[in-house]
């Protein structure tokens, strides 16, 4: 589904990703771990098409087609979804209005009639209950005045509403309390199926107890320095990153 090859990315005159390879197939869950500043969010932003990131070498393809040149909205419509590490607040634009506009644009791309407002609202209510957000959050401005944990749950609500093909979750577990972590994990598990894929970026083994990854990668200094199965996460939890980055150096 996603194939990243030898990716080199420059941001603000600085090379952040330095030859990254990653292949994700449908039905898989991948986890990326790695030290602060190693380039995890940079990778998620580049995949989502954020302006300001220059691919100086390498390529990204999605379902066999190169997407390097596509706008963020085109990628989103193809099914790439990024749950942000720091979701922004958009005052006055209601969550519901925002989600409907997003969903309509995706339906349109697939040449489908947009979902009726009634069905949409019904679905939004059910799913907001699933992520433990009161219905009032649907009417509020996007993330406006939401607590850190509420913002993260709102990202999962969007994931469930939009049903993308590839979900990139950038530290969605950071800042969640124990119950919220469980709720969010359940949300992600309910999204998961054999046709879609998940890329989890996390610092904590804890999340991986709830969502079993098929692959765990370590990103250090702009490159994947080690890949393994879920046991790698346990090992990292015990040993930290130094042993890997040292051998990498």
């Amino acid at each position, binding site marked *: 589904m996603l194939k990243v090859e030898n990716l080199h990315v420059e941001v603000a005159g600085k090379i952040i990703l330095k030859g990254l390879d990653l292949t994700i197939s449908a039905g898989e869950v991948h986890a990326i771990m790695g030290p602060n500043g190693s380039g995890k969010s940079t990778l998620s932003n580049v995949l*989502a*098409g*954020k*302006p300001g990131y220059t691919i100086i070498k390498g390529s990204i393809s999605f379902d066999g087609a190169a997407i390097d040149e596509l*706008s*963020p*909205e085109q*990628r*989103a*419509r193809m099914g790439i*979804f*990024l749950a*942000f590490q720091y*979701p*922004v607040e*958009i*005052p*006055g*634009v209601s969550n519901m*209005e*925002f*989600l409907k*506009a*997003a*969903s309509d*644009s*995706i339906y349109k*791309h697939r040449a489908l009639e947009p979902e009726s407002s009634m069905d949409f609202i019904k679905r939004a209510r059910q799913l907001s209950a699933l992520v433990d957000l009161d219905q009032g959050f649907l009417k509020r*401005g*996007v993330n*406006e005045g939401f607590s850190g944990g509420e913002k993260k749950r709102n990202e999962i609500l*969007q994931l469930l509403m*939009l049903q993308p093909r590839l979900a990139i979750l950038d530290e969605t577990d950071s800042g969640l309390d124990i119950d919220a972590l469980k709720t969010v994990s359940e949300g992600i598990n309910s999204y998961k199926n054999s046709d879609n894929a998940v890329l989890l970026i996390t610092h904590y083994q804890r999340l991986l107890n709830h969502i079993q990854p098929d692959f765990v990668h370590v990103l250090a200094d702009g490159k994947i320095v080690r890949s393994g199965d879920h046991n790698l996460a346990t090992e990292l939890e015990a040993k930290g990153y130094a042993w890997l980055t040292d051998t990498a150096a």
Partner: protein
Amino acid sequence: MLDRYQFIKQCEAQYQELSSRLPWMDSIRSESRSRLHAVGLPAKNHEYWKYSAPEQYLFSENMPTNSRGKHWRCEDALNIDMQGQLSGDSVCGALPDGLTVERFSDIDRDSSSRGILEQHFNSNLKNLSAQNRYSMGDLNTSMLNDGVLIHVGKGVTVAPLLNMQLDSSGYQRLLVVLEAGSSLTLLEQLPIDEVTGSGLSHLVESSLAPGANLQHSRIQPASTASDYALTSAHLGASAYYNLNLYTLGATNRRHDINFKLVGDDSKVDLNAALYADNSQTSETLVNMEHLGKRTVSQQIIRGIATSRARISINGRIHIHPHAQQTDASLSNKNLLLDNTARINTKPELEIYADQVKCAHGATVGQISEEEIFYLRSRGIDSETARFMIAQGFIRSCLIDAEFKDYLERLFMEAFISWEQ
């Protein structure tokens, strides 16, 4: 537009004609006129007029206009026109006890309203008008031939909304007097006068006795005319004034606001949403004067400009020497929707007391790229994203729950019609 010389000549002629109207006002008018002679008409070289075109607000006649009748009407309100008349669709056939709404010219010589009028009319303004900044106030007074008095008796709470629908231009005047412990919710709607394009000079003078509570909202629809408004209020001890302004652009629009928090523990909340497009100018000047102890003022001002429009905001907080434990804040956030629009904002602080809390902040920004990316990352194209964020910003400035839908329609109509 007249030149100054013609203007003064015509004013003099008009002034002579006025002398037969409301004889009790004669001495007040003549006082205003002498002050005007002494202080002079506003001029561009004056500090507080440098963003304005003062000539735009000088007109010598009271002209009726054809309001297009698009005012917000509410079945549960007391709908009042500028003749002071209650219209048929109001909640009740008569005004509730303790509330008086009367045209100055209908007030009898021996009535109690007459006493109120003589006590309060021009009393705030007289104190302001030594400053050239407010000389438009004296111009209004010297040209005035009528106005409306709103009076709420001691301890009276007027439950329904008083919905004043201004439907003419020229020199207009509202005097609001709230006796001790009374409360009133007032909505003022300025005319939609695209038809005649004539000017408006609108003055609202309020006097709040101790413990009085005034909720006052003003809707200024888009207009191709020029209008000037002056709102001045005097607050007694523990009085509360909440002013909410919803202002769309006019060819020229200026609003001077002066609050005097005289009584101890009095409080003002001022919220303003200002929108302008298509080379319009919109100027709001606030002067929040803290005189009593433990007085509180909070100003939240939001400006949105596009397409060569110009918005100017001057927020001044003046804490007088005895106003200890004042708590004053001013927050002004502005959004430029393109790079041809301009927003000038200037907070001014003058503090003469030492135990005070005073916070102010002003920003002028463009739509954030982070917000646009957030929407785009969900499939929304960048033009739509920009539009939604701008709409959201406007919407988040419209806080009056009761007529929020109407306000949203009004602002969105202006915004959308301009964007398309």
